């Protein structure tokens, strides 16, 4: 093929912008771009005009001002003298906390319910079906409110823990479930605690090493070594020993009912009911969806797979771990992660129980007190967007890694 054989290039004509497949795409995109730019310019212009008319500006300086309000549940230290930025950070951490707790619990509930729904036990199967349908078909907001109300109604008030005629008692003597939250012991780091931490980390490492050693040994000799018990021992024994040798460097601050004044627990940490309610409502609601995903995933692995494994002499437990799960996970994980995404976004319903998430701090009190709607909502939206993009990015990477090889 020589260049000479090429038809002579004709001069460019404007009609080619529409008629020529090489240029038409370009034309359409340029037009679309112009329209979009026009729309954005129009909205931006309106924004500027409106802000000017209201005498407002666009400025994030308010984040540095004193917040002035208190937050019940904080992961980092916070007082009402801190700035709005710190309040927002507290809210952000609270959002992430409840999202993380919710995802873990929802997974546990969902996997259990999904597996149990497939169980041959009629009663269990029906019960799980009722659970799934009930939670999927009623709005989450309603569940959050209901769980919150049930929680505070079903638990005793702190006063009932007090004195001779106490009608309520602490679980194991250290945990108190009350209408005002759950009080749990909290570790206090004393002298030598760093060393203990090092020991703990080392024994975790050692347990992992043991696991991989056992694996390699088995591959090499065929004989399996006990993993679970040995690993547990490695994990627990040195830490306990170090704990005793170092003279109990970590003590637990156990909640105790105070003697005078209003009945309340001192010490320990209080997990507010709003957090628990939100956490469980989210977990139960999302768990119902996850149950369906898990069930679908297991059903998607054909019966032939487990039969083949049985025929090879594999026990049901091994079959599950080596054959069914790896395949089911490929089906389960992508929709599972999008459920995590939903759960994370749904944490914004915290407003129904007054949990101090990011929407309640930055998008609630701060926005209301400073009158910085645009800035607050922009930051709020960006936060959720970034979280979503991170999660879905991770999902895409995973999906690409697990794709089954086909012809």
């Amino acid at each position, binding site marked *: 093929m020589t260049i000479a054989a090429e038809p002579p290039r004709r001069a460019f004509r404007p009609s080619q912008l529409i008629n020529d497949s090489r240029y038409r795409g370009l034309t359409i995109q340029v037009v679309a771009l112009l329209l979009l730019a026009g729309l954005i310019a129009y909205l931006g212009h*309106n924004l500027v005009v409106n802000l000017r008319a209201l005498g407002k500006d666009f400025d994030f300086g308010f984040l540095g001002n004193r917040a002035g309000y208190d937050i019940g549940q904080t992961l980092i230290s916070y007082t009402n003298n801190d700035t709005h930025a710190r309040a927002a950070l507290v809210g952000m951490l609270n959002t992430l906390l409840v999202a993380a707790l919710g995802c873990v619990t929802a997974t546990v509930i969902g996997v259990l319910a999904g597996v*149990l729904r497939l*169980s*041959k036990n009629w*009663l269990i199967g029906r019960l799980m079906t009722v659970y799934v349908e009930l939670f999927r078909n009623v709005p*989450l907001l309603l569940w959050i409110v209901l769980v919150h109300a049930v929680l505070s109604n079903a638990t005793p008030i702190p006063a009932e823990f007090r004195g001779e005629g106490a009608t309520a008692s602490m679980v194991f003597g250290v945990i108190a479930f009350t209408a005002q939250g759950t009080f749990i012991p909290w570790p206090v780091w004393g002298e030598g605690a760093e060393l203990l931490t090092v020991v703990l980390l080392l024994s975790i490492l050692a347990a992992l090493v043991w696991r991989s050693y056992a694996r390699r040994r088995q591959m090499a000799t065929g004989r399996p070594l006990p993993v679970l018990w040995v690993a547990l021992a490695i994990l627990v024994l040195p830490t306990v020993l170090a704990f005793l040798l170092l003279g109990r460097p970590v003590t637990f601050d156990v909640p105790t009912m105070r003697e005078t004044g209003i009945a309340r627990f001192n010490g320990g940490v209080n997990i507010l009911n709003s957090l628990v309610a939100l956490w469980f409502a989210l977990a139960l609601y999302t768990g119902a969806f996850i149950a369906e995903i898990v069930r679908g995933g297991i059903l998607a692995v054909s019966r032939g797979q487990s039969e083949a494994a049985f025929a090879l002499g594999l026990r049901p437990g091994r079959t599950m771990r080596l054959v069914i799960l790896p395949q089911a996970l490929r089906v389960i994980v992508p929709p599972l992660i999008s459920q995590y995404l939903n759960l994370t976004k749904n944490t914004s319903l915290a407003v129904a129980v007054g949990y101090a998430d990011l929407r309640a701090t930055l998008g609630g009190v701060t926005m209301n007190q400073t009158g910085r*709607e645009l800035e607050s909502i922009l930051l709020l939206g960006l936060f*959720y967007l970034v979280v979503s993009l991170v999660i879905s990015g991770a999902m895409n990477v995973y999906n690409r890694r697990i794709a089954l090889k086909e012809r």
Partner: protein
Amino acid sequence: MSEIHAETVAFARDTMMPPAPPPRRETGAVRWMRENLFSGPLNIILTILAAWLLWLALRDLLPWAWRGIWQAGSASECRAIRDQLYGEGVPAACWAVVRARWRQLLFGFYPADGLWRPLLALGLFLVAVLPVLFSGAPRRLLWLSAAAPFVIVWLLWGGSLWGPVAAALGFVVGWAIWAAVARRGNAGLALLLGLGAALAWWFLLARPVAAGLASVAPLALVPVESRAFGGFTLSLVIGLAGICLSLPLGVLLALARRSELFFISKVAVAYIEVIRGVPLIVWLLVAQVVLNYFLPRGTNFDILLRVIIMVTLFSSAYIAEVIRGGLAALPSGQYEAADALGLGYWQATRLIVLPQALKISIPGIVNSFIGLFKDTTLVSIISLFDPMRISSTIRATTEWGGIYWELYVFVALVFFAFCFAMSRYSIWLERRLERSHR
């Protein structure tokens, strides 16, 4: 050795054995119980656990609901009746609140003598979607489907009949001009002219025409303001409007996302990801709080309309993903056949691709609707009177001050009935699609 073996080998049966019933322990209720409830130690534990859980859940709930008091004028009256019937402090539901306020829970503050209007609108909607949801329905109903949105708007908001008629005529005018020009050839020009004609009609002619018609034949319903909408009517209006309006937008987004044009597909992806990455509640805040900043100074329209717009934009991103799935499910041969016949992009899309892709997408669309319908409870947070807020309002009155669970149970039951029915339908449809799939 082999001799003996050969003896045992050769064999022919001359009379067939009749089937025998299975041994006793393999049949009947005993077997059912053994297999389904007590087939192993784990199963026995599970059964007992389940029964215990069930008992825990129902022990308090059932008597409470069963003892319910239906006739009372206020919460305190309820308590008095309860004390009289069952004794002091015995838990008993006060269903009287539902009896007294069900109308508000279902219809909000819609005028009491006009309740037939939302009901008729809902009925009309159901008939209108019949041809879409059930392929067996007569095709002629499609005309009704086309007219339904206008009639429904008229029924719900009232006012002169001619307003919606004039709006509908805009579509007719646009379509007529588009069809006339498209016949002659140029599709792009036809689209432009059709659009132009419709816009011209809406902005210049519709109002005077409607006014003129109204003066000739004043057909009108009592106008009802958006503020009067509440309860499940509000949820349905927002949910259904959101889904129906987001459908065209979702289709365009899905097509854009699959487009080969780099910029167009990237814009669609960005839009979809941004919308889906941020919770609806934040978008509702945007609708309530910041949307006005982006509109010309002084524009101020109905919060309900703003919510519908926001919900439409929101659900269009989800619908787009559903439809993208439908598009992806179409075999590429369909596109090739359309190309080979000389159909243009829009012709192929409209005549070949969308009818098939939409049909595949219906279960997904119904599921989106269920999600959206449940999410309408979020508008209570921006002070619209959805069922949740109506319940709060009722509880804030002096009569029904102490009532809590009854209202929520009622609201939950109604939501459950709606959503469960729809999810069954979508499952049924999915099965049917699976079966009919080539």
